[in-house]
């Protein structure tokens, strides 16, 4: 089983930054690539939904919303063993939420293996971003004196960039349907994977910086960041099996549970839980969990899904 070339781009970025190369991509490129990925994933899901009777999607979406809130609670319970409440809560929010890029690499993995998956997985990606963020804020605030600016938080989360682009893409894809998408696919479909490769190069560069911050956080955080993904993946895979998903669907739901956010969550937590030290959650989420999922997790979860749905 050879590595997906897009993962090699991640390793290149990582190696370059660790060797202290001056390689640096312009901030505007990073922003552009993330806008592109979010829209492209949304469109793909929307087009697939358009082909589907969407009857069962609703309760499935409710189920995964509950699941990700639950995972955030579990993560908090574990993290509280060693971390202060704000840090535990903010980090738990990252792990209950999901990573768009990990999802993208996992779906590209499935494509390579010729395994299909249900279109609603993209809907799950969208709806699983938010609930854990709310859980995180509530946990941080319980027993603290400060009040929560709920208005600002709701706004931050519901109208945050990734939410708007994912859901907007879903809707446009749904309305345009396979016919309307034809003229858009040379960008959003054909270029998806190579654009992902550039994004992962950038991720490698940034991850290296966060890895450095890991040492300061100690062994507990590192272990948490390493062990949570496979455990959460099992929970996700079993849920997916229970929902009657296909092998690809089970694998992607496992990946979503195993993945942790590093785009939406850091921004939301920084504003809603200022007392939390962002170095803790980023070192875990970006420094350890993201590369683990990319290099080890994804093939593992695919094997798990195959086994469960055999």
């Amino acid at each position, binding site marked *: 089983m050879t590595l997906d070339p897009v993962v090699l781009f991640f390793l290149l970025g990582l190696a370059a930054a660790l060797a202290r190369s001056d390689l640096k991509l312009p901030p505007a490129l990073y922003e552009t690539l993330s806008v592109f990925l979010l829209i492209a994933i949304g469109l793909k899901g929307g087009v697939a939904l358009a082909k589907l009777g969407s009857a069962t999607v609703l309760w499935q979406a409710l189920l995964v919303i509950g699941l990700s809130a639950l995972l955030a609670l579990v993560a908090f319970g574990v993290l509280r063993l060693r971390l202060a409440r704000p840090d535990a809560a903010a980090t738990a929010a990252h792990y209950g939420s999901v990573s768009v890029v990990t999802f993208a690499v996992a779906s590209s993995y499935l494509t390579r293996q010729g395994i299909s998956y249900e279109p609603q997985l993209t809907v799950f990606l969208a709806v699983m971003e938010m609930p854990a963020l709310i859980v995180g804020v509530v946990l941080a605030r319980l027993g603290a004196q400060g009040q929560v600016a709920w208005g600002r938080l709701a706004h931050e989360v519901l109208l945050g960039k990734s939410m708007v682009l994912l859901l907007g893409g879903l809707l446009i894809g749904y309305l345009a349907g396979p016919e309307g998408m034809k003229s858009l696919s040379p960008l959003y479909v054909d270029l998806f994977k190579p654009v992902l490769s550039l994004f992962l190069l950038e991720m490698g560069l940034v991850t290296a*910086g966060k890895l450095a911050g890991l040492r300061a956080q100690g062994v507990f955080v590192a272990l948490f960041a390493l062990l949570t993904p496979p455990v959460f993946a099992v929970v996700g895979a079993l849920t997916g099996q229970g929902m009657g998903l296909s092998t690809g669907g089970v694998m992607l739901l496992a990946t979503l549970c195993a993945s942790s956010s590093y785009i939406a969550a*850091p921004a939301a937590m*920084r504003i809603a839980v200022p007392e939390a030290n962002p170095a803790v959650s980023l070192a875990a989420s970006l420094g350890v969990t993201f590369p683990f999922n990319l290099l080890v997790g994804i093939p593992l979860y695919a094997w798990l899904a195959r086994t469960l749905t055999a």
Partner: protein
Amino acid sequence: MTFHSKKLLTIVTESVLEGQLVEDIRRLGAHGYTVCDARGGGTHGVQGGAWSFDANIRIDVVCDEAVAGAIAERCRSRYLPHYGMIVYVSEVGVLRPEKF
């Protein structure tokens, strides 16, 4: 040329705070503000400028002493304890004092 004496308040902080700070600045009586993207380093480590959570902004406000004091006080109580931030003031002379 006559220049009228005002204060220039400068804040360098995490870019995630831009929206809140602009709101604060307006509410506390400043008539304007200017924002530039920045990177840098300090007691909260290096902000390389690549990602939103890794980037800084620099906000400049020209205003009178009372407003500068109010904004600085707001920064001191609300943001300085938790965020990477520095705040400083200096003396400037402006052309049209009624604008500030």
